[in-house]
Structures are given as C-alpha cells and as structure tokens.
C-alpha cells in the first residue's frame, strides 16, 4: 500500500475548537425565528384505557396556540413494526407515554396549560417483566398486533406479547449435552439502564401550510431513516420532508428513532406554519425517550473434561418496553452471538423480544452484546472453576480464530480476538498475585490490617457484528481554492466521525487536514446514509468517502492532463498538487486545475456509494447466514478489583481494554472511544439501573438518583489497540464505538467473583447486592439471583 500521510495519525479533532469555546450550537440550543414552544402531558398509568380527555380549559389559557391529543395526530410509526402512535390513541402502555401536547408563546405557558388537561383512565393489568409478559394467558399489550404493518423478517411466533422470536439452530444440543462431561445451567439478569447523554432530547418542526412540506430540526443519529419513518407515517412523499441535523450532545443510540420528534411534528400541523420547539427536561428524557433492554438470560452448556465446548443452549427474554422500536433487531443481533466468540458444535438459541409496560427500549451502544456477554462470560468462568481450569486457558481452547466456521454458518476472517485476550490479560498481570499499585490500598502493611479487603481479577471477551447489509453514499467537492467539502450523512455524535472522514478525504486528495470541511447535515443536500449506528460508519462511510475522493481525484487528473501537456504519461497527486510522475516539477495545485477548467466558481465533485454487497439476511428458521455481518469487532477487557467485604463496595483498581479495530485511522480517537466506553461500562457494572417500581414508575429519573460515573470513580484505564486488518475496510479499518462497554460488566463480575468466591448473577454490582451475596455465602443460604460457587 502507498505510504499513508494522514490516515493512522493521532491528529486532533476537527470539531474540538468550536466545542471548547462554546460556539458550537446543539439541538438543545437552537432557536428559530418566530418559534412556538411545545410541552407534552405524559401518562401517569402503566397500562390503561383512555376514557375521556378534556382539553377545553387548556385551550382557553392565555398564550396557548394549540392543544392536541391522539385524535389530532392519527398516525403510527415504528422502525420494523408500526405500533407506536404519535400521541396515545385510546390507551396508554407505559408511565411517560405522551398523551396530549400544547404549543404556546413560551415554555412556561405551555407547561401551565398542560396541567389543565384532564384525562380519565381505566386501569388494565400491566406487565413489568419480559418473562412474565410472554407466559401463556398473559393479556396482550397490543391487541391489534396482527394488523400492524411490519418488516418481512419479523417472526413474532405464538407467545403473547412477543414481537420477535429469533431462532438459531446448529447441530443437536441434546446430543451435545449427552456427550459432555459437565453440564452447567444458570440464569442471569441485566436491568434497564439509560443512555443519559448530557444533552437532553429536543426537536423542532415546521409544516409549511402552502406546500405541505415538513421540516424537522433534530439531533437524530439516523436522519434518513427518520425521514423514511415520518414519510410512511404521514403518507407524505419523501421529497416533502426535510431533516436538518444540529450538533448532538451525545446519544449512544438514544437519539435514533422518533420520540420527541413526533410530538413536535404533530404540534406543527396546528400552528399555521410557525415552527414549534419541544424540549424534554431531564426527567422527561428519563421516562419518555429510550432505555436499554433489560434481559433475562438462561444459559446451559455442555463441556468436555479438557474444556472443549460441546453444546450451548440459551434463552433470552428482551424487555422491549411498551413499543417495539428497535427491539426486533436488538433481539436478533444480540441473541445471535450471545453464546460467545467460541467454536461450539451444537447451539440452540431462542431470543424473545417481549412487550412490557415499561418505557420503550431502543438501540443502546452495544446493541444487545453487553447483555449476552454478562451471562456468557461469567458462565465461562463458572465452567472454568468447575473444571479447575485457568479461565484464560478455557477461552484459548475455544475462541474464534481465522478460518473458523462460526455457529451461525459464517467462515470468519481477520479475527484479532486471541491477541486482544492475551494483551488485555497481560496488562493486568494475569496469573500473578495482586499487582495493584501499593499506593491504592496503602501498601502490603495496610492490606494486612484490612482483612476485609479482597482482591480479584477477571476478564471477558466479545465479538460484535454490525448492521448488514447497509449503504452509505458520499460526495466530495473540490473548489478553485483547493478546499475540500465532504458531503456525508454520518452524524457527529461525539464519536469523532467528522475527523475520521476528513482524514480519509485528505488522504486521498493529498491535502492537509485543514483544507477539508464537513458539510452540515441536511437531507435536502446530503446523499443517503443508512444510519450512524452499529459502529458502521468508519467502515461504510469511510469506504464511501474514500471512493468519492478518489473519484474527484481522478476527475482532477483528467482535467489536468491537457494543462500539463501529458499525453500518455502517468499522473500522480500529492501535497495538494497534480503532477507528472516522471517529472514532478510539472505540477499544478488542484485548485488551479479547477479554476482553469471551470472558472473561479467551479467545483469538481466526486461521488460514491458503498454497500457490503455479499451481506445476507439471516435464515428465519436456523438463524444462519454465510455473511451475516460486513465485519466483526473483537475485544477483551480485564479488571482487577478490590471488594470491601464489610460494606460490599467494589473498587476497580485498574482495567485494560484491548480492541481489534482493524486499522486505527486515528489512534488518539480510538483510545478516547475505548476509555469512554469503558467508563460507561463501569457505570453499568457497578451502579447504573433505572429503578422501575411494581407500578411501572421510574423512581430515579434524575442524575441525583441515577448515578453516572464521575471523575472520582474511575480506575487507571489501559486502552490497547489491536490491528487485525479487514481487507474490505478502508485502510483495513473495522469499527469501534460500540464494543467499548460490551465486555466491561462481565469482566468486573468475574473479578468480583474471584475476589469474594460468590457469583452474582444480577447487575448492577452495587454495595447492597455484593454485601448480601457475601452474607449469603457466610450463611450458606441461597437466593434467586445468587449462585454459590462450588
């Protein structure tokens, strides 16, 4: 390969300066001329019929422009199942569901009018566990499920409230269990957590009364998908809808799909052309946007005495919440690799996404992988313990390597997993006695004085697929000053795509990075992109931008040929110039080429589209596909923890995270992504949980009660980049954003079990849970969520 000049370098972010000066304008900051302010009324009931809504008083309130209910917005939407109304229709399905909305002169007025809306409800039985909701005889949360429009791949099956049943069938698990020397069965649970981006959710919308055109300003992570969904819901052609993306203050999956957007659009139909802004405050963001799927996971494995895995059966119940949103695909793509990155001859997986009367679960960084890993990787350590085997050795016996046929029928290549396992465990001195810096606990002396502190080590491995097949398109413009503008629909959600894509364009056009800018994201101007999700952007959009830049470069060279009087001579491009390969002094800056051919206002445009062509959907009966994912991301994280047996407090002493990224286009940004993922994973391991009570009410909808990690909570983090190149990826790159938090809780769980000798099967590992686990071990009792280590 040619020498790379910008790709692979730890350049600083192109968007950092506007962010450190406060100039950056986010969705939550956006003010439109003449705009009105919207507020919603949310359901106080988890499941109830709406008997009556009285909006009269609210309508009379001075300053109110519109008061609407589901009757005024008779539309439903949903990504793969069209089950969700813009505003509740006839019934409500969770506490926090928008029921009515007001547009007014200012926010205080809108909120005051919302309080005047009266709703009468008739309670219905409600379900708060996915396992309960799909038991025979459960009453349906969606009575009309059968009549909803759905994607072809949706297989709900016959159980009540199940909106998707994913099946994987490989070999014969019963035979595998019979042939095994050890059979182990366990149950794990992962609670609801939230993305908790620091920017809350908001959306602005405007409907032009003459043309009927709908414009939506929102920091959505998939504007083209949102556009499609709105167009289907409203029955409007796509040309009549425009999404403009202001900057996003973090999303982690929560800012995909339609939530606050539908309220803004519904109101905008009643404001005579004035734009409406709907901003959720923090509490509203907690109860009425998206959450991460809770999961109940049953896992059973058969293993040979030497550690070879013979069979694995898993049943996963994914709590979808009240509406399907992305649950079907989370269920599919989370359940598929849940048995872990291992060679297993006999595998059976059943994943059920079940409606419950909880807030809607959606995509969340990791897309189902963290839940599966929490079960699988702790289960692996339990197996190792039973076999008296080193957990690393057990993994090495079974982990995916190049050329393996994965249990879903795909031959794997570019597998960097083993290297991540070795490097991550080495970084915490696996196999050696506690290697924490003595200062952390006050040295050996202090430890002897603190017999209640127990040290342990653990790790976890994952593989993660990406959404496949999908398409990214890009345009690259070159003007007569030699400046480059990249048109790409990838959303800058903080992950650094604007820097990565700028690097790619700069690399191919051989210009310095500061000559490249990203065009603002507006669906009227920017070519199609599937979504900024699934860690797909560096690979898919990276390929598209790279090809578009090459297209532009080739056009420039063709234009330069007569200018350089080159007939058959070979041309080349570097340092922002086109030149004759054999006579480098015969050179023209690319801007001059544009100007001489097209004038001062001329622009040369390169275009490209990238799709992973051989990507195939999974077979609905077996879950098999020989190209299920454009690429796979592999990672191992390892933790060393100190557990205080008197208080149950877990302190992480150090933590390594080794990620196979294929090729680090920007190593600085890769390290930043890994550290950020790790921090989020640590929060989800130790304290994050949306506490939803037996009535379906979120008890902790604030940052005071829902704990994010702070600057005081984090251990030494050791990010490790492994590069096992993906031939089809740009410069060999895969993806990275999502896996950062996927193995984290399981790695910590394994370290805690190593420290205290008890396996805790439920997250989070908060002091209370850990304390009682220790007490239970001492008393030799047992309870639902604890399995004593033999």
């Amino acid at each position: 390969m040619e020498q790379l000049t910008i790709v692979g370098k730890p350049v600083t972010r192109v968007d950092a300066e506007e962010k450190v000066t406060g100039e950056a304008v986010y969705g939550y900051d956006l003010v439109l001329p003449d705009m009105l302010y919207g507020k919603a009324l949310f359901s106080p009931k988890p499941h109830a019929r709406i008997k009556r809504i009285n909006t009269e008083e609210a309508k009379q309130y001075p300053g109110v422009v519109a008061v609407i209910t589901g009757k005024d917005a008779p539309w439903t939407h949903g990504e793969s199942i069209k089950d969700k109304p813009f505003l509740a229709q006839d019934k409500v399905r969770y506490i926090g569901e928008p029921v009515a909305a007001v547009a007014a002169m200012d926010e205080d007025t809108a909120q005051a009018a919302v309080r005047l809306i009266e709703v009468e409800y008739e309670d219905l039985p409600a379900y708060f566990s996915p396992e309960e909701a799909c038991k025979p005889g459960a009453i349906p949360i969606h009575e009309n499920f059968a009549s909803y429009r759905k994607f072809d791949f949706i297989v709900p099956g016959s159980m009540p409230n199940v909106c998707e049943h994913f099946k994987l069938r490989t070999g014969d698990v019963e035979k595998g269990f019979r042939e095994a020397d050890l059979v182990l069965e366990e149950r794990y649970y992962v609670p609801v957590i939230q993305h908790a981006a620091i920017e809350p959710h908001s959306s602005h919308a405007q409907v032009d009364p003459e043309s009927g055109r709908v414009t939506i300003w929102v920091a959505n992570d998939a504007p083209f998908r949102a556009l499609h969904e709105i167009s289907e819901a409203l029955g409007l052609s796509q040309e009549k809808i425009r999404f403009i993306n202001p900057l996003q203050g973090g999303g982690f999956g929560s800012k995909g799909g339609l939530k606050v957007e539908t309220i803004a659009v519904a109101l905008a139909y009643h404001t005579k052309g004035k734009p409406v802004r709907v901003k959720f405050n923090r509490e509203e963001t907690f109860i009425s946007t998206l959450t991460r799927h809770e999961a109940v996971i049953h896992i059973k494995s058969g293993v040979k005495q030497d550690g070879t895995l013979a069979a694995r059966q898993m049943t996963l119940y994914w709590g979808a919440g009240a509406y399907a949103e992305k649950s079907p695909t989370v269920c599919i793509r989370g359940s598929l690799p849940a048995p872990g990155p291992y060679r297993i001859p006999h595998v059976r997986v059943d994943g059920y996404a079940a409606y419950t009367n909880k807030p809607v679960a959606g995509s969340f960084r990791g897309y189902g992988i963290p839940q599966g890993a929490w079960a699988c990787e702790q289960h692996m350590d339990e197996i190792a313990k039973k076999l008296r085997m080193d957990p690393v050795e057990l993994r090495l016996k079974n982990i995916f390597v190049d050329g393996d046929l994965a249990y879903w029928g795909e031959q794997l290549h570019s597998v960097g997993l083993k290297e991540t396992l070795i490097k991550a465990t080495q970084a915490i001195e696996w196999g050696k006695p506690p290697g924490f810096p003595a200062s952390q606990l006050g040295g050996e002396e202090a430890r002897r004085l603190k017999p209640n502190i127990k040290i342990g080590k653990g790790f976890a491995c994952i593989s993660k697929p990406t959404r496949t097949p999908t398409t990214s398109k890009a345009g690259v413009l070159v003007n007569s000053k030699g400046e480059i503008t990249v048109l790409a629909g990838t959303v800058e959600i903080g992950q650094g795509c604007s820097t990565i894509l700028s690097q790619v364009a700069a690399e191919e056009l051989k210009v310095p990075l500061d000559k490249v800018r990203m065009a603002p994201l507006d669906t009227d101007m920017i070519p199609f992109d599937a979504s900024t999700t699934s860690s797909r952007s560096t690979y898919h959009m990276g390929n598209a931008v790279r090809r578009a830049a090459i297209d532009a470069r080739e056009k420039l060279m063709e234009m330069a040929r007569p200018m350089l009087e080159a007939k058959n001579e070979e041309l080349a491009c570097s340092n922002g110039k086109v030149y004759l390969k054999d006579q480098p002094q015969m050179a023209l800056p690319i801007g001059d080429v544009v100007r001489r051919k097209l004038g001062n206002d001329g622009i040369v445009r390169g275009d490209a589209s990238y799709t992973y062509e051989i990507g195939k959907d999974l077979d609905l009966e077996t879950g098999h596909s020989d190209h299920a994912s454009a690429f796979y991301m592999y990672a191992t994280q390892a933790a060393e923890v100190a557990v205080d047996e008197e208080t149950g407090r877990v302190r992480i002493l150090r933590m390594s995270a080794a990620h196979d990224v294929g090729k680090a286009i920007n190593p600085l940004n890769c390290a930043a992504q890994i550290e950020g993922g790790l921090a989020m994973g640590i929060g989800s391991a130790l304290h994050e949980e949306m506490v939803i009570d037996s009535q379906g009410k979120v008890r902790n909808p604030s940052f005071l009660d829902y704990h994010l990690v702070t600057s005081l909570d984090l251990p030494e983090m050791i990010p490790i980049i492994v590069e096992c190149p993906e031939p089809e990826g740009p410069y060999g790159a895969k993806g990275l954003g999502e896996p950062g938090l996927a193995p984290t809780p399981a790695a910590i769980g394994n370290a805690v079990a190593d420290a205290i000798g008890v396996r805790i099967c439920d997250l989070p590992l908060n002091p209370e849970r850990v304390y009682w686990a220790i007490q239970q071990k001492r008393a030799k009792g047992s309870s639902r969520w604890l399995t004593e280590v033999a």
Partner: protein
Amino acid sequence: MKIPVTLKVNGETYDLVIAPYRTLLDVLREELQLTGSKKGCDVGDCGACTVLLDGKPVNACLVLAATVQDSDILTIEGLAQNGKLHPLQEAFIKEGAVQCGFCIPGILMSLKALLDENPSPTGEEVKAAMAGNLCRCTGYSKMFKAVESATSGLGR
C-alpha cells in the same frame, strides 16, 4: 411581573427586564444568546451550566439572575482572551479530551476556577474540582491529562 436587572457578563454590562424567578442559566441562554453554558438537567446535578461568579464556580441553573447583579460573571464565551484560547482550551484540543462536547464548557469553567486558585494542582485536586461535572462520553482521563499538560505549560 418583570423587574429591571443589570448583569455583568464577560466584561460587558447588560440591562434587562426579566421575571424575577428566571435563572441565570435561562437568562444567559435566552436573553443574551450565550448558549455556550449548557443545560443538562436544570436542577444542579450535572454541572454543564457551570459559570464563574466572581471567580467561584456555580451551577447557573441554581442561581436566580436577579440575585447576582453585583457579581462579575464569566461564561465559556469569555474564557478565550483577545482571540487567544486559554491554555486549558488548547490542552483539551491537543489531548483529545473533547467528544460530543456538551459537558466541556462546564468542565472548563470548573477547571479555570481551580487553576486560578491553585496553579499546580495534584491529580486528586483536579478530580475533586471536576466531581460536580458529569461527562458521559470520555471517561475523564484525557481531561486529567489535559490539565496536566496545561499546567506544565505544554498546552500553551
């Protein structure tokens, strides 16, 4: 009811007529269009709205604008001086401490207050100064490094 209020922000004086219950954060963002101070919770939990009142960091969402008429208010928009970035800003860029950026204005203001008091803080002091500022993206560690680099002069 509205009352006249005079605020001194980033060295400029603003005469306003506002409702007495309005917070400093809302007034900065909506009346003065200084949207660099962010609103992450509006109840004092996230620190995204941190500004300096006479050099002391406060959550602007917890302060009524009418009560701080005698103070010098510094917001993120006033951190760079005469077009030159503050060493903390430089260092945040250089060390890769910025991701989505939503927490960054608040964090920079907390750190500026720290460095003004204590130009060479220990790691623990830096962590403590930032403990009221939530960041969901970065895991903070590149921010710690950035402070180190700014205080050792490398960020300049």
